[in-house]
């Protein structure tokens, strides 16, 4: 584990709707602080903080601290993070394509 990530089962990461939503937001916005992630995900601060800690433990995301402010983003050095980010992008794009086709029909 070169980047200090803990062993975590994939179902543990993806078993929470909140965590998946956070990953989707970070895919779209690149980097954000906790309050803003919480606002966009529709979660409270404490829950968001917990989810972020789990995702960081899994090595998928990382943070930078600026005084009291913590800014989270995908951990681009982690292969799992790269693949998850790609999965999110492809998934979103496919959804857009489908809704476009439906509108045209």
């Amino acid at each position, binding site marked *: 584990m070169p980047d200090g990530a803990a062993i975590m089962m994939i179902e543990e990461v993806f078993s929470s709707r909140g965590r998946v939503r956070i990953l989707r937001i970070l895919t779209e*916005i*690149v*980097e*954000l*602080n906790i*309050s*803003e992630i919480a606002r966009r995900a529709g979660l409270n601060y404490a829950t968001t903080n917990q989810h972020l800690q789990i995702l960081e433990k899994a090595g998928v995301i990382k943070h*930078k601290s*600026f*005084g*009291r*402010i913590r*800014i989270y983003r995908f951990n681009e050095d982690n292969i799992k993070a790269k693949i998850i980010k790609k999965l999110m992008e492809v998934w979103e794009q496919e959804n857009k394509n489908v809704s476009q086709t439906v509108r045209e029909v």
Partner: protein
Amino acid sequence: MRSSIQKPLKAKKTRFFRKEAHSLFYASVFKDETKLDINYTPAKLHHRYSQLELLKQYFRHTIERPGRMTQRVIVTGQVGTGKTVLAQHFGRSVLQEAQNRNINLHYIHINCRQNKGSFFLVLQQIVERFHPTFPKRGYSAEELLQILMQILDNENIYLITTLDELESLIQVEGSEPLYKLSRIEETRDKTSRRLSLICILRDQSWLDKLDASTRSTLQSNIINLGPYTKEQLSDVLNDRVVLAFKQGAVSSETITLAAELGGEEGGNARYAIELLWRAGKYADTEKVPEVSPEHIRKAVGSVYAVVRRDEVAALDFHKKLFLLGIARHFQQNRDIHLPMGEAEEAYSIICEEFSEKPRGHTQIWKYVQELASLGVIKAELSASGQRGKTTLIGLPRVSAAELEKELSRALDNAGRGSNYDD
């Protein structure tokens, strides 16, 4: 039978719509009017090369030995003297130089007035360039400055930031922001110095409002930009005309007049450029393919109402006639100066029209002086080099058509009226 009547009607309707569509897409005098926008930075910098070189010299160490030394420079000059464009050109060239030397240097230009003179908002703008989604609340300006320095350290960035319209920041926040910005490097025990400043001010006297220690750190390097001369403004305008207008849409007389007016407004290039843009709009409204000096006069009138109706009505009868002659001349001709002799001739024609005996030369010369002092006309001696000397009359700030309309109305209403002089 019925259909045969309807058919031509339909055809007529189609023709009408075609005409409408044609008028909507009438060919404009502009090729790209964004090139006349206040925020546009032209690729070529006119008549500010020496100041650009000086700025480069001041920042030489920042580029040659990054991290060893930071710099603070003040640029002053009145409105439209090229302060912003100078800083932006410097920003471009310094970025290019840094790229060539593989230095992670950034240039950020911030307008303090647009940020309501708030130190917090200014810093936020800078931080957002590096982290666009950085939270907007939850910390003080001091914390934000520390955050900025942390970002510069973490990401190994050297930053030159220009604080444009600095008056606004001084007015709202006093000395504190500049003191903190100029001293931040000294309070850090890091070896790398990262934050350099360019401060843009209209008037250097604003620095007197700062406390002594802040002033002393700032005042060492000052570049003062004098007003552009008429000739320099012509170069600036010629450049913009090529970019913004279609070929042949703006005559040299039009450019000369705009440059002259910009020169009179304290060598203000911004004003002269705006006049060109407005004049272009007037040409488009009239659906003519060329911007004439008359359009520039109209543009001036739309910026400031120069001739007031009551002023025109209060003029003596023969002054009105003389002015009418001038107005008619400029309406019919493209030149921007009228020699005294020709003005007298135009006046004689008007006198004939009104069955009046024209006043003598000395009296007319007095009219010229009085009208010039009122600001309605401009009178200047012809340049040396011409044969003989004559007074040249110009109508730079008033639309000739508008003036003629006003004068005709005043003459119709009053006739010789009570204003009959001598």
